[in-house]
């Protein structure tokens, strides 16, 4: 169900349309002309999300500020330009029917407004709003994913370098261990012992370099 800002200067029309919208389960906020509707929207914007109407359903011909003027005004306002607007247009000529779209409305319903048409347009509006929300959320997820990808790329590069360093160290240790073995075979016990000690030291250093860091003791 939607929160609809209903804008109409004619009290009878307003009451009928309000009744139709409420019957369908929508929440309705009322305004008598474009200027009042603009005020309602501007008052709602400082509170993020919750109190903004999902849809504005407005008559075109109203004193003060017409539906088309209202539409053009909110399209210029960065805080309000994404508001979904349906205009109730005249139904006599193609020009009067398309006047709403020309002024920047998202959709229109010809007058006299029929309940089934209004219901269909509001249903379509809610689908479109859902799609806009999906697109915004997916863009946010992708931007976050791009940041994570860069972090992972950095981490992978560091890991590759670490692998290179370790491979080099292991290579020299492997050579040293073979040298030590040869020295033992040749009966050169002292150099062999020295080599093995150096090897043991290098192994410890290697273990320390790859061992996970100890987490800080919370008591210290």
């Amino acid at each position, binding site marked *: 169900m939607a929160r609809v800002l209903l804008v109409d200067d004619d009290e009878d029309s307003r009451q009928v349309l309000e009744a139709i919208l409420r019957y369908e389960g929508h929440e309705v906020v009322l305004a008598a002309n474009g200027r009042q509707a603009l005020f309602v929207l501007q008052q709602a914007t400082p509170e993020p999300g919750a109190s903004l109407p999902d849809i504005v359903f407005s008559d075109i011909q109203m004193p003060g500020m017409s539906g088309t003027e209202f539409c053009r005004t909110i399209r210029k306002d960065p805080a309000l330009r994404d508001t979904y607007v349906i205009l109730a247009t005249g139904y006599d000529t193609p020009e009067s029917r398309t006047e709403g779209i020309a002024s920047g409305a998202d959709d229109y319903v010809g007058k006299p407004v029929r309940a089934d048409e209004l219901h269909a347009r509001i249903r379509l509006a809610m689908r479109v709003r859902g799609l806009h929300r999906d697109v915004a959320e997916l863009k946010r997820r*992708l931007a976050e994913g791009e940041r994570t990808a860069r972090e992972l790329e950095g981490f992978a590069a560091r890991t590759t370098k670490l692998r290179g360093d370790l491979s080099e160290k292991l290579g020299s240790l492997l050579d040293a261990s073979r040298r030590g073995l040869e020295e033992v075979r040749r009966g050169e016990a002292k150099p062999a012992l020295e080599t093995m000690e150096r090897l043991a030291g290098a192994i410890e250093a*290697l*273990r320390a370099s790859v061992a996970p860091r100890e987490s800080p003791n919370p008591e210290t």
Partner: protein
Amino acid sequence: MATVLLVEDEEVQRKVLEATLRSGNHQVLLSSNGAQALVVAKDKRPAIIVADYNTPKVNGAELCKKVRADKSLDGVYILVITAEAGDSKRIDSILAGADDFLRKPVQKDELLNRVEIGLKVRDLREEASELRRKAERQEATQEALVAALEAAVRGFESAAARFAAEDPDGAHEALRSSHEELRLALSRVVLPDGGA
């Protein structure tokens, strides 16, 4: 301009609607019933289906249901033309599968306006689907990379342990295999600029 599939069993009405759609610079595909329309839709992938609600064989409601059940037709916008609209319950049943409806007799500008609005919605759907595919691909490659990095770290730990156990060849082997996993994972990473 878009490709519109028009489904209408009455020949005169079909010709009138076709001419209207062509006057809006749309490419028009024709079907006289829902069953035929489904075959054409799968083959030609129209952006919009404009369907009479009461067509023989497969009617408008059944056509909507079949289109929505077909993954290959995801995102297609369906505008139903109906003679008897009625209460919101009936409209709900129409709009369960369709996106919008138009009442007969169809005004020329009204049809073109509703098609234009439909095209905007269809573009938005396409954008959302493309973004969703991108996000899913991105998440899958990142999960694979994280798993490979974890395996690489385990490989380093295993190499250090084998070396400490005086098994340098085993240590080398552990490093070699962890390096291979990492190389594979990096080759699958898709970064925004296309680099890996």
